[in-house]
């Protein structure tokens, strides 16, 4: 997030933290995240230096995408990748809006012309849909309440807080023995200070189970755990986020 904002600021977008172009501000538009997908292959430790490269580009006619590659500066190894989708929303009506050609010209002049993806491979995890989840969830943590610290300048819950809430309902024995390898989040609704949120976790069966019974499938199943998630308002049950996490067993 920091690098994204700094990139935007360095090319002359607004410095209020919103990275809006002149036209966007005239029209009262702001960027909102639609989807976030992060994969971490190796977690850095205290004192490590991480280098992050980021860029943005058009994403169909609807919005933009921003991609990141994270490297360990000491050895150049890629330790993670991430991609995100963004759309524009009217600040006042809170409704999504298509990107007009004017805005596109302002934004994309600073983006690489040749498409470049952090996840160029076919059928990669960032494209997988997250299905609608139906009760009952195997695990849950109910009654989560935003703290003041979770709010951004707009008094809305910051999207990083959602990650913490999603993880709240993961069973402790997974947390003790695994590390988070992948997280995908679809953002659907906004959440504010007075809302109460329920976090639900469902076990997702790996698809590899149904493939041929080759030797590679069995150890794969043991090395990874996969979950689907839902954050929703405690009262109405409306979805705030949907998510998927994949966990890698720690070799302890």
């Amino acid at each position, binding site marked *: *997030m*920091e*690098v994204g*904002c*700094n990139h935007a600021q*360095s090319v002359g977008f607004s410095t209020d*933290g919103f990275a809006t172009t002149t036209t966007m501000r005239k029209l009262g538009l702001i960027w909102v995240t639609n989807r976030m997908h*992060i994969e*971490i292959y190796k*977690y*850095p*430790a*205290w*004192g*490590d*230096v*991480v*280098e*992050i*490269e980021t860029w943005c580009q058009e994403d169909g006619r609807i919005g933009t995408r921003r991609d990141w590659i*994270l490297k360990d500066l*000491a050895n150049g190894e890629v330790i*993670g990748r*991430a991609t995100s989708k963004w759309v524009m929303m009217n600040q006042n009506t809170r409704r999504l809006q298509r990107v007009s050609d004017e805005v596109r010209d302002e934004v994309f002049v600073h983006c690489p012309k040749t498409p470049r993806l952090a996840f160029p491979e076919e059928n990669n995890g960032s494209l997988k849909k997250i299905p609608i989840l139906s009760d009952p969830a195997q695990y849950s943590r109910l*009654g989560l*309440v935003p*703290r*003041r*610290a*979770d*709010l*951004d*300048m707009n*008094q809305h819950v*910051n999207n*990083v*807080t959602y*990650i*913490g809430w999603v*993880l*709240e309902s993961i069973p402790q024995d997974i*947390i003790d023995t695994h*590390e*988070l390898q992948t*997280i995908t989040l679809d953002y659907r609704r906004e959440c504010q200070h007075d809302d109460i949120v329920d976090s639900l976790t469902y076990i997702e069966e790996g698809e590899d189970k149904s493939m041929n019974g080759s030797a590679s499938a069995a150890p794969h199943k043991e090395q990874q755990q996969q979950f689907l998630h839902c954050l929703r308002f405690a009262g109405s049950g409306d979805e705030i986020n949907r998510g998927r996490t994949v966990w890698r067993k720690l070799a302890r």
Partner: protein
Amino acid sequence: MAGSLAASAFFPGPGSSPAASARTSKSTTGELPENLSVRGIVAKPNPSPGVMQVKAQAQALPKVNGTKVNHKNVGANAEESIPYTTPKTFYNQLPDWSMLLAAVTTIFLAAEKQWTLLDWKPKRPDMLVDTFGFGRIIQDGLVFRQNFLIRSYEIGADRTASIEALMNHLQETALNHVKTAGLLGDGFGATPEMSKRNLIWVVSKIQLLVDKYPSWGDMVQVDTWVAGAGKNGMRRDWHVRDYNSGCTILRATSVWVMMNKQTRRLSKMPDAVRAEIGPYFNDRSAITDAQSEKLAKPGNNIDSDATKQFIRKGLTPRWGDLDVNQHVNNVKYIGWILESAPISILEKHELASMTLDYRKECGRDSVLQSITTVSDECADDHPGSNIQCDHLLQLESGADT
């Protein structure tokens, strides 16, 4: 007398006998907490009342403590001719990867691009070029200095750095100081002699005086040093300045005592440890004793009708609040305490000073409540007026307050 000083540092309270206080602390066998008492938060109004000053935590994440230090300074003894001992707290060294995850999503800029944007040049010749901001020991080994850039996720709704973000810098410099001096024994913020005896540092009191909050993109310079505190304790002070203007941002002082890891009982300072750290004590004080006492005085709660009390219940540690020992990081307490501060104060004021007395540890299953009592409130809202709040963070079920 020195002994009582150390104990009273842990349980400051006029009239409380050190022996009795010490007994209370030892009754806890392990992780479950009981009590946290905070005194004297003084808030001063924002000079421009129209601007919102909400002390939100933003996404301030404690810095990551890793088991392995890849930094080339890890064999720091070779670099400094004076072996420097500045032991630290019981912050464990294993990565708390919930914070790592968030740290990954909020990032450290590539050094070159950053320096290009900021046109950063080292201004003081006694400070070696510190490309990645790891910090350096200066002034013949008596002070450690490190710079930090304020990140977007460290600012709150009022667009200035949150108090938690600033305290995280204090923690980071303290640990880097010890690490650079080559005195981070066995990963638990203990010196080698302490580790041999299963002792760890625990914080008992922190006092902060904030003059000015930095904003996103500002660079702050943190100086830190240590001194003795009574016979068995250690004091660590910090002075934080804006790197470019030199203006003071905040001053802080903290008191640390030793605790046995297994028994969780406080311990006297062994002679061997004193020999390790004694030579590095620096008499300088960030906050004078007089200032300190003034800040720590509890408010006037004489008339219970006139004072307002605010309670926020049901505070539980979240997944990201815990370290690997399943204990709540001490910076997180600040957020909880401020949860119960009335929004009317937070909106128009900024935190000017804070005194915290740590009494008990807190674990994952604790349910806490935060109580704020407002006292000494000025009737009018003119800029410059102060409000003092007393806070108590306690177990919902706890009898003690």
